[in-house]
Protein backbone atom coordinates (compact mmCIF):
# COMPACT_ATOMS: atom_id res chain seq x y z
CA UNK A 1 0.00 0.00 0.00
CA UNK A 2 2.69 2.49 0.92
CA UNK A 3 5.85 2.80 -1.09
CA UNK A 4 7.89 4.27 1.76
CA UNK A 5 9.31 1.78 4.19
CA UNK A 6 10.48 3.61 7.30
CA UNK A 7 13.43 2.33 9.26
CA UNK A 8 13.21 0.53 12.56
CA UNK A 9 15.17 3.41 14.02
CA UNK A 10 12.44 5.89 13.05
CA UNK A 11 9.77 3.75 14.67
CA UNK A 12 11.89 3.22 17.77
CA UNK A 13 12.43 6.94 18.22
CA UNK A 14 8.68 7.53 17.95
CA UNK A 15 8.02 4.70 20.40
CA UNK A 16 10.43 6.03 23.00
CA UNK A 17 8.99 9.52 22.57
CA UNK A 18 5.49 8.17 23.18
CA UNK A 19 6.60 6.44 26.38
CA UNK A 20 8.41 9.56 27.53
CA UNK A 21 5.35 11.72 26.88
CA UNK A 22 3.20 9.30 28.87
CA UNK A 23 5.58 9.65 31.79
CA UNK A 24 5.58 13.41 31.37
CA UNK A 25 1.83 13.74 31.36
CA UNK A 26 1.53 11.54 34.44
CA UNK A 27 4.15 13.55 36.32
CA UNK A 28 2.73 16.91 35.32
CA UNK A 29 -0.66 15.84 36.61
CA UNK A 30 0.73 16.07 40.13
CA UNK A 31 1.73 19.69 39.65
CA UNK A 32 -0.81 22.41 40.32
CA UNK A 33 -1.20 24.35 37.10
CA UNK A 34 -4.68 25.56 37.78
CA UNK A 35 -6.80 25.72 34.64
CA UNK A 36 -3.77 24.89 32.51
CA UNK A 37 -3.62 21.31 33.74
CA UNK A 38 -6.28 20.35 31.23
CA UNK A 39 -4.59 22.29 28.44
CA UNK A 40 -1.24 20.62 29.07
CA UNK A 41 -2.71 17.14 29.39
CA UNK A 42 -4.71 17.47 26.19
CA UNK A 43 -1.82 19.03 24.31
CA UNK A 44 0.42 16.13 25.21
CA UNK A 45 -2.33 13.72 24.17
CA UNK A 46 -2.67 15.50 20.83
CA UNK A 47 1.08 15.26 20.23
CA UNK A 48 0.98 11.54 21.00
CA UNK A 49 -1.96 11.12 18.65
CA UNK A 50 -0.11 12.96 15.86
CA UNK A 51 2.96 10.76 16.35
CA UNK A 52 0.91 7.57 16.12
CA UNK A 53 -1.11 8.85 13.17
CA UNK A 54 1.72 10.32 11.13
CA UNK A 55 4.36 7.66 11.74
CA UNK A 56 2.71 4.43 12.83
CA UNK A 57 -0.33 4.85 10.59
CA UNK A 58 1.81 6.28 7.80
CA UNK A 59 -0.48 9.26 7.43
CA UNK A 60 2.46 11.43 6.44
CA UNK A 61 2.96 9.21 3.40
CA UNK A 62 -0.73 9.04 2.56
CA UNK A 63 -2.43 11.03 -0.15
CA UNK A 64 -3.79 14.51 0.40
CA UNK A 65 -7.36 13.19 0.28
CA UNK A 66 -6.82 10.88 3.25
CA UNK A 67 -5.11 13.61 5.23
CA UNK A 68 -7.90 16.02 4.42
CA UNK A 69 -10.56 13.47 5.36
CA UNK A 70 -8.96 12.84 8.74
CA UNK A 71 -8.51 16.54 9.45
CA UNK A 72 -12.11 17.11 8.42
CA UNK A 73 -13.39 14.45 10.78
CA UNK A 74 -11.58 16.05 13.71
CA UNK A 75 -13.15 19.31 12.64
CA UNK A 76 -16.57 17.66 12.67
CA UNK A 77 -16.00 16.38 16.15
CA UNK A 78 -15.05 19.93 17.01
CA UNK A 79 -18.38 21.20 15.69
CA UNK A 80 -20.31 18.70 17.72
CA UNK A 81 -18.45 19.54 20.92
CA UNK A 82 -18.22 23.31 20.55
CA UNK A 83 -21.85 23.86 19.57
CA UNK A 84 -23.09 21.68 22.43
CA UNK A 85 -20.84 23.45 24.89
CA UNK A 86 -22.10 26.75 23.51
CA UNK A 87 -25.49 25.67 24.77
CA UNK A 88 -24.35 24.28 28.11
CA UNK A 89 -22.26 27.28 29.05
CA UNK A 90 -24.70 29.99 28.00
CA UNK A 91 -27.86 28.71 29.60
CA UNK A 92 -29.34 31.44 31.73
CA UNK A 93 -27.61 34.22 29.85
CA UNK A 94 -30.67 35.33 27.96
CA UNK A 95 -33.65 33.84 29.75
CA UNK A 96 -36.11 31.29 28.45
CA UNK A 97 -37.84 31.59 25.06
CA UNK A 98 -41.52 32.44 25.26
CA UNK A 99 -41.32 34.21 28.60
Amino acid at each position, binding site marked *: *MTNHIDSVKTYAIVWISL*LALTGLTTAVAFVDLGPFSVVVA*LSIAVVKMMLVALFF*MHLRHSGKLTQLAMAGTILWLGFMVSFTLADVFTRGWLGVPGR
Partner: protein
Amino acid sequence: MWIFLITEIMFFGGMFLAYIVYRALYPGTFAVTSSSLNVYIGAANTAVLLCSSFTMVLAVRSAQLGRQTALAVNIVLTLLLGLVFLGVKAFEWSEKFAEHHVPGTHFHFEGIANQGPAQLFFSLYFAMTGLHALHMVVGAGLMTWLLIWSLRGKFSAEYMTPVDIAGLYWHFVDIIWIFLFPLLYLIDRHLK
Protein backbone atom coordinates in the same frame (compact mmCIF):
# COMPACT_ATOMS: atom_id res chain seq x y z
CA MET B 1 -10.40 1.38 6.52
CA TRP B 2 -9.72 5.11 6.77
CA ILE B 3 -13.41 5.79 6.06
CA PHE B 4 -14.36 3.22 8.67
CA LEU B 5 -12.07 5.02 11.13
CA ILE B 6 -13.97 8.22 10.41
CA THR B 7 -17.11 6.49 11.64
CA GLU B 8 -15.24 5.21 14.70
CA ILE B 9 -14.00 8.71 15.54
CA MET B 10 -17.55 10.05 15.49
CA PHE B 11 -18.75 6.99 17.41
CA PHE B 12 -16.35 7.48 20.33
CA GLY B 13 -16.77 11.21 19.88
CA GLY B 14 -20.32 11.03 21.17
CA MET B 15 -19.11 9.57 24.45
CA PHE B 16 -16.31 12.07 24.66
CA LEU B 17 -18.92 14.79 24.26
CA ALA B 18 -20.93 13.43 27.17
CA TYR B 19 -17.74 13.32 29.23
CA ILE B 20 -16.78 16.89 28.33
CA VAL B 21 -20.22 18.26 29.22
CA TYR B 22 -20.37 16.57 32.59
CA ARG B 23 -16.81 17.40 33.49
CA ALA B 24 -17.58 21.01 32.71
CA LEU B 25 -20.64 20.88 34.95
CA TYR B 26 -19.09 18.97 37.86
CA PRO B 27 -15.35 19.67 37.88
CA GLY B 28 -14.83 19.16 41.59
CA THR B 29 -16.61 15.82 41.81
CA PHE B 30 -14.87 14.51 38.72
CA ALA B 31 -11.49 15.39 40.21
CA VAL B 32 -12.22 13.50 43.41
CA THR B 33 -13.63 10.43 41.67
CA SER B 34 -10.79 10.40 39.16
CA SER B 35 -8.24 10.22 41.96
CA SER B 36 -9.77 6.97 43.14
CA LEU B 37 -8.37 5.36 40.00
CA ASN B 38 -4.87 3.97 40.27
CA VAL B 39 -2.79 6.30 38.12
CA TYR B 40 0.30 4.05 38.12
CA ILE B 41 -1.61 1.08 36.78
CA GLY B 42 -3.25 3.36 34.24
CA ALA B 43 0.07 4.76 33.09
CA ALA B 44 1.65 1.32 32.94
CA ASN B 45 -1.26 0.05 30.87
CA THR B 46 -0.84 3.02 28.55
CA ALA B 47 2.79 2.04 28.10
CA VAL B 48 1.75 -1.54 27.34
CA LEU B 49 -0.56 -0.36 24.60
CA LEU B 50 2.06 1.97 23.14
CA CYS B 51 4.50 -0.92 22.99
CA SER B 52 1.88 -2.98 21.19
CA SER B 53 1.56 -0.20 18.60
CA PHE B 54 5.34 -0.37 18.17
CA THR B 55 5.27 -4.09 17.57
CA MET B 56 2.30 -3.64 15.24
CA VAL B 57 4.09 -1.16 13.01
CA LEU B 58 7.09 -3.48 13.00
CA ALA B 59 4.75 -6.24 11.87
CA VAL B 60 3.56 -4.06 8.98
CA ARG B 61 7.16 -3.30 8.11
CA SER B 62 8.07 -6.99 8.17
CA ALA B 63 5.21 -7.68 5.80
CA GLN B 64 6.33 -4.90 3.47
CA LEU B 65 9.78 -6.51 3.36
CA GLY B 66 8.39 -10.02 2.98
CA ARG B 67 9.99 -11.25 6.20
CA GLN B 68 7.67 -14.05 7.28
CA THR B 69 9.21 -14.96 10.64
CA ALA B 70 9.54 -11.38 11.82
CA LEU B 71 5.93 -10.78 10.76
CA ALA B 72 4.61 -13.69 12.79
CA VAL B 73 6.73 -12.80 15.82
CA ASN B 74 5.55 -9.19 15.81
CA ILE B 75 1.91 -10.20 15.45
CA VAL B 76 2.28 -12.54 18.42
CA LEU B 77 3.90 -9.79 20.50
CA THR B 78 1.16 -7.32 19.57
CA LEU B 79 -1.49 -9.85 20.50
CA LEU B 80 0.18 -10.68 23.81
CA LEU B 81 0.58 -7.04 24.79
CA GLY B 82 -3.06 -6.43 23.89
CA LEU B 83 -4.12 -9.31 26.10
CA VAL B 84 -1.97 -7.96 28.94
CA PHE B 85 -3.78 -4.65 28.58
CA LEU B 86 -7.14 -6.38 28.78
CA GLY B 87 -6.05 -8.40 31.78
CA VAL B 88 -4.94 -5.32 33.66
CA LYS B 89 -8.20 -3.62 32.75
CA ALA B 90 -10.16 -6.56 34.09
CA PHE B 91 -8.20 -6.32 37.34
CA GLU B 92 -8.95 -2.61 37.60
CA TRP B 93 -12.63 -3.25 37.02
CA SER B 94 -12.73 -5.94 39.69
CA GLU B 95 -11.24 -3.46 42.14
CA LYS B 96 -13.99 -1.01 41.30
CA PHE B 97 -16.62 -3.67 41.89
CA ALA B 98 -15.14 -4.39 45.30
CA GLU B 99 -15.10 -0.72 46.23
CA HIS B 100 -18.78 -0.26 45.30
CA HIS B 101 -17.86 2.24 42.64
CA VAL B 102 -20.00 0.54 40.03
CA PRO B 103 -23.08 2.60 39.15
CA GLY B 104 -26.36 1.08 40.09
CA THR B 105 -28.16 0.26 43.28
CA HIS B 106 -24.99 -0.57 45.26
CA PHE B 107 -23.07 2.52 44.32
CA HIS B 108 -21.45 4.45 47.12
CA PHE B 109 -18.49 6.80 46.98
CA GLU B 110 -17.04 7.87 50.31
CA GLY B 111 -16.59 11.50 51.13
CA ILE B 112 -19.07 13.10 48.77
CA ALA B 113 -22.47 14.42 49.74
CA ASN B 114 -24.00 14.45 46.26
CA GLN B 115 -23.58 10.94 44.94
CA GLY B 116 -25.22 11.70 41.60
CA PRO B 117 -22.31 13.31 39.69
CA ALA B 118 -19.91 10.81 41.19
CA GLN B 119 -22.04 8.08 39.72
CA LEU B 120 -22.01 9.94 36.40
CA PHE B 121 -18.22 9.85 36.37
CA PHE B 122 -18.17 6.12 36.90
CA SER B 123 -20.93 5.57 34.36
CA LEU B 124 -18.76 7.29 31.81
CA TYR B 125 -15.66 5.49 33.05
CA PHE B 126 -17.24 2.08 32.57
CA ALA B 127 -18.99 2.99 29.33
CA MET B 128 -15.88 4.45 27.71
CA THR B 129 -13.32 1.93 28.91
CA GLY B 130 -15.83 -0.81 28.22
CA LEU B 131 -16.37 0.29 24.64
CA HIS B 132 -12.61 0.61 24.26
CA ALA B 133 -12.07 -2.87 25.71
CA LEU B 134 -14.65 -4.27 23.31
CA HIS B 135 -12.67 -2.79 20.45
CA MET B 136 -9.52 -4.32 21.91
CA VAL B 137 -11.18 -7.73 21.96
CA VAL B 138 -12.09 -7.32 18.30
CA GLY B 139 -8.50 -6.26 17.71
CA ALA B 140 -7.26 -9.38 19.46
CA GLY B 141 -9.49 -11.41 17.21
CA LEU B 142 -8.05 -9.64 14.16
CA MET B 143 -4.51 -10.38 15.37
CA THR B 144 -5.33 -14.06 15.83
CA TRP B 145 -6.77 -14.27 12.36
CA LEU B 146 -3.74 -12.42 10.92
CA LEU B 147 -1.43 -14.81 12.73
CA ILE B 148 -3.12 -17.84 11.24
CA TRP B 149 -2.96 -16.39 7.75
CA SER B 150 0.65 -15.33 8.16
CA LEU B 151 1.67 -18.78 9.36
CA ARG B 152 0.00 -20.17 6.26
CA GLY B 153 2.21 -17.93 4.16
CA LYS B 154 -0.59 -15.81 2.72
CA PHE B 155 1.28 -12.53 2.98
CA SER B 156 4.14 -11.22 0.91
CA ALA B 157 5.68 -7.90 -0.03
CA GLU B 158 3.17 -7.73 -2.90
CA TYR B 159 0.12 -8.64 -0.83
CA MET B 160 0.02 -7.42 2.76
CA THR B 161 -3.16 -5.33 2.66
CA PRO B 162 -4.89 -7.12 5.58
CA VAL B 163 -1.86 -6.50 7.79
CA ASP B 164 -1.86 -2.84 6.80
CA ILE B 165 -5.57 -2.46 7.47
CA ALA B 166 -5.44 -4.31 10.80
CA GLY B 167 -2.55 -2.07 11.75
CA LEU B 168 -4.59 1.06 11.10
CA TYR B 169 -7.38 -0.33 13.29
CA TRP B 170 -4.98 -1.27 16.08
CA HIS B 171 -3.32 2.16 16.11
CA PHE B 172 -6.69 3.86 16.14
CA VAL B 173 -7.80 1.95 19.24
CA ASP B 174 -4.48 2.96 20.81
CA ILE B 175 -5.17 6.63 20.01
CA ILE B 176 -8.53 6.39 21.77
CA TRP B 177 -6.74 5.15 24.88
CA ILE B 178 -4.17 7.96 24.54
CA PHE B 179 -7.06 10.34 25.18
CA LEU B 180 -8.93 8.20 27.69
CA PHE B 181 -5.95 7.96 30.03
CA PRO B 182 -5.48 11.66 30.81
CA LEU B 183 -9.20 12.42 30.72
CA LEU B 184 -10.16 9.68 33.16
CA TYR B 185 -7.07 9.23 35.33
CA LEU B 186 -5.32 12.58 35.45
CA ILE B 187 -7.93 15.09 36.54
CA ASP B 188 -6.34 17.40 39.09
CA ARG B 189 -4.10 14.77 40.63
CA HIS B 190 -2.28 17.45 42.56
CA LEU B 191 -5.24 17.81 44.81
CA LYS B 192 -4.84 14.33 46.26
